[in-house]
């Protein structure tokens, strides 16, 4: 199976907190995972350049980077290194999406990568007493 590395990247400690919360649910992830936090005064571009060098040194590793917000400085900086074939960049990090990514034990192809994003979108809902979703009961 192809090597996979997941990076959670955010402004501040969201990425660290996300990893912590995920581990409460699934325990230690089976793939290589790290977090990046951009703090005031740091340069996201500098980080992206460093990551770019790492990615180029590991052409056989699939890099799945999950950034916090579309168009934020972390995401924008990371977009600049998308010329790497083995880099896949998400924005809009949320727990549903990260859980899907980290519990995929098989090879992650393009179709799966899209499915993870869909899971993240489907995980966003609004409920109240009067709008409790009516879902049909299933039978065998």
């Amino acid at each position: 199976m192809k090597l996979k590395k997941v990076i959670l990247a955010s402004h501040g400690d969201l990425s660290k907190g996300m990893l912590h919360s995920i581990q409460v649910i699934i325990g230690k992830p089976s793939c290589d995972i790290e977090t990046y936090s951009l703090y005031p005064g740091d340069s996201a571009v500098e980080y992206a350049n460093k990551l770019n060098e790492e990615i180029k040194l590991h052409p056989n590793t699939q890099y799945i980077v999950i950034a916090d917000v579309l168009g934020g400085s972390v995401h924008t900086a990371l977009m600049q290194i998308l010329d790497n074939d083995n880099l896949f960049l998400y924005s809009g990090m949320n727990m549903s999406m990260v859980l899907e990514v980290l519990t995929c034990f098989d090879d992650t192809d393009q179709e799966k990568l899209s499915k993870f994003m869909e899971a993240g979108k489907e995980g966003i809902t609004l409920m109240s007493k009067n709008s409790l979703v009516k879902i049909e009961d299933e039978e065998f």
Partner: protein
Amino acid sequence: MIKCVRIDHRLIHGQVAFSWTKFLDADCIFLISDQLMKNEIRMAAMKIAKPSGVKLVMKNIEDAIKLINNGSTDKYKLFIILESIEDAYRLTKNVPSIKKINIGGTQSKDDRYQISKAVFISKEDEQKLKEMIKMGIEIEIRLVPTDIEKKVHFM
């Protein structure tokens, strides 16, 4: 085919929904509980907590026994989740094909003592576990699939 029978008082929640279903490669989660069937909001919550791409069926114990024994569930890779040791005992007494039970967590109560980080049992539970072990059922404690299996046995 029954892939796994698990006891977890929370039924479907993060741990179960994501890690176990994928680990087991199950295509159907079967929740068996008399209490659950009486609580519509809780049933709705289970449907929402269910991982995508997996079927979810909920039944009381009596109906579940019939469905498993008459072959209705055979074509599914079943992940059965029960709420308590008592329910597991009632089910296994009537479903001989169950040979192994995983305990994820049971509720802590005044009359229960702790046998593992998330597992609390009463004297009656202990008795039922002993009987199930005598029936040849293997009982192991494991919260998430990647944890090490802890076999349950009594002195």
